[in-house]
């Protein structure tokens, strides 16, 4: 367990005389025992970052410090890190016991001490009956648990996980997620978890590092990432179904900034601080925050008129796809009010739930007290 510091770590590749920036310089400090998730789509640089930390590739610049010691170019073995892989990477010719025992044996732990530690780890992970089996005889979830055990058994300074749940089916993924959470409570190793699955990131982490195209976009708690996404990318990446986004024109009126959709209707009236000049921006609202009601006849502000295009009933929830003029809107409906395709509805974006983005970045904005103008 240790504190990890990344200072200016970056990686550039040269391909056909052009420089390809796989990872822009980043600074990050991970506290002792913290669970940090690196979240991003493929190509975002998260795998590169992981490889740099583990030591399979050397950085183009910057340093990696583990408890103050510089391990930037250190040998794999010297880093005292452990890793869990997407396809488990268990030793096929060894039993579960052999797999768990291996790291201890390689570090020179005495035989008398190894056996009880193996048993203890097996008990922690529920593997006691499987100790004499070979990886080939185990299910995916069991194999993953052995991989976890093998990584944790030597109490490494840093615990890395590379999309460990991607190979499991949905149900198993949920189980293992809980398992990982539990493990981290019992054995609080400093952990870096890499994934493209934002649900895993939200559920497991103390902090999330969101990456896109080699850059770190936001480092924050899951709650902050969800409720105060730093930019359009984070806003669109986190949360499913994805946040609704509308291009809006911004004009001052009355006590606030009025955001108008392309069709001209006023979607929201806000008071951003620091203040924002008139111009264009993007208005975002999560599907579950959109208010709606059936409405025959004309619609009055602050409501907007829309027509239901498609309904997707998934049993637990219902997704309503509607159009406001030309703009598509996705609404997450949990209360099972009935509505039919083609029916006109009234839609409203409550100001407290709305996100305003100017030049791609989020701007803090409070609801404006004055009513929207009727122009």
């Amino acid at each position: 367990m240790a504190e990890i510091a990344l200072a200016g770590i970056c990686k550039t590749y040269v391909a056909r005389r052009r420089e390809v920036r796989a990872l822009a310089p980043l600074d990050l400090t991970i506290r002792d025992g913290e669970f940090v998730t690196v979240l991003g789509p493929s190509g975002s640089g998260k795998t590169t970052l992981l490889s740099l930390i583990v030591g399979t590739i050397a950085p183009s610049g910057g340093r990696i410090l583990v408890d103050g010691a510089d391990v930037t170019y250190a040998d794999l073995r010297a880093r005292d890190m452990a890793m869990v892989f997407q396809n488990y990477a268990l030793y096929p010719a060894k039993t579960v016991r052999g797999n768990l025992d291996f790291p201890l044996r390689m570090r020179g732990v005495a035989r008398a001490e190894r056996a009880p530690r193996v048993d203890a780890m097996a008990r922690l992970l529920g593997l006691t009956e499987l100790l004499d089996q070979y990886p080939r005889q185990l299910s995916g979830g069991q194999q993953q648990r052995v991989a976890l055990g093998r990584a944790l058994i030597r109490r490494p300074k840093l615990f890395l996980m590379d999309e460990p749940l991607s190979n499991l089916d949905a149900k198993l993924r949920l189980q293992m997620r809980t398992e990982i959470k539990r493990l981290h409570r019992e054995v609080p190793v400093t952990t870096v978890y890499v994934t493209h699955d934002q649900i895993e990131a939200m559920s497991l982490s103390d902090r999330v590092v969101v990456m896109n195209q080699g850059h770190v976009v936001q480092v924050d708690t899951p709650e902050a990432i969800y409720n105060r996404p730093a930019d359009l990318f984070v806003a669109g990446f986190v949360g499913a179904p994805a946040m609704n986004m509308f291009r809006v024109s911004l004009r001052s009126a009355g006590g606030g900034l009025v955001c108008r959709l392309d069709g001209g209707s006023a979607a929201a009236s806000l008071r951003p601080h620091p203040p924002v000049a008139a111009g264009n921006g993007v208005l975002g609202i999560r599907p579950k925050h959109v208010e709606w009601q059936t409405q025959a006849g004309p619609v009055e502000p602050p409501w907007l008129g829309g027509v239901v295009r498609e309904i997707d009933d998934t049993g637990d929830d219902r997704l309503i796809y509607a159009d406001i003029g030309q703009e598509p809107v996705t609404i997450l409906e949990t209360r099972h009010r009935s509505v039919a395709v083609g029916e006109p509805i009234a839609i409203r974006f409550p100001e407290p739930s709305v996100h305003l983005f100017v030049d791609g970045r989020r701007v803090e904005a409070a609801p404006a007290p004055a009513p929207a103008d009727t122009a």
Partner: protein
Amino acid sequence: MTTLAEPGSGTPAAFGSLRLRWGERLAGYPYVLPAVLVVTAVMSYPFVYSIYLSFRATPSYTTRTHFNGLANYHAVLHDPIFLHSLLTTVIWTAGSTIADLLLGMGAALLVDRLRWFRGPARAALMLPYIVGYVVASYAWLWLYQAEYGLLNDLLASSHLISRPISFLSSLTWALPAVMLVNIWKTAPFAMIMFLAGLQAVPEQTVLAAGLDGASPARAFLEVKLPYLRRVIVITSIVLTFQNFNTFTIPYIMTSGGPLNRTEIVSNYIYDVAFTNLNFGRAAAASVVVMIILMLFAIAYAGSLSRRPPGVV
């Protein structure tokens, strides 16, 4: 229209098992018939004919043969030269195969870590295998040459010997010398097989071993080697038979001498057949050899099919 039956071993079964209608049962035969006929004519017929010949006396002055029971076998099995050649062949086979495996594995491990140089290195190391036994024999004949050969020259310049050694006429050195040529020629095959096998070792598992603290040697022995088990077994089998059945190298380089020290069974059979012109006895010897080889094959077949859970 005949439907494709469940494809042969190794292909993913397409429709599961279809019940074969009468026509479908025959669908495969036309494809394999020419090959089967050819193999029967060129291999099976000679095989059977050999057995037939082995029981007949074959005087060299006439093509007529007559049955003489086990006389040929008796002569062969009591011929000290034959028995000696068997022993030599065993030494030759075991020595060459083991050396091939070791050298091949070493080369594969070294080449595997190369990036840019990998292609040229691999091609260069394969050259001995490509040019064939004949060129190999002559190349090393020249190398081993007593007066003008490279080897003697090197040994003389480093003052290890005072007079040139004629390796191929030496009773002690002849067999190792020709074996070296065989190893030189066949080891690249092992290298290629092991290179392919190493490609199949999952990188992440080796990485995990490194993280776990394994030294490169330990990682090789405990993690990589299990993945290589199958390819090692197969390569050993192929090499064993290939080495056992060599003819060219001893024939060209030493003609089996000196004093039959380098004579292996193929040479013996050839000599009996074409120098002594005794086909019957030669056939008997070849049948004996075939029996030995078949026993080997049966033993090996067993080791390939077993697959306990801990074996990759």
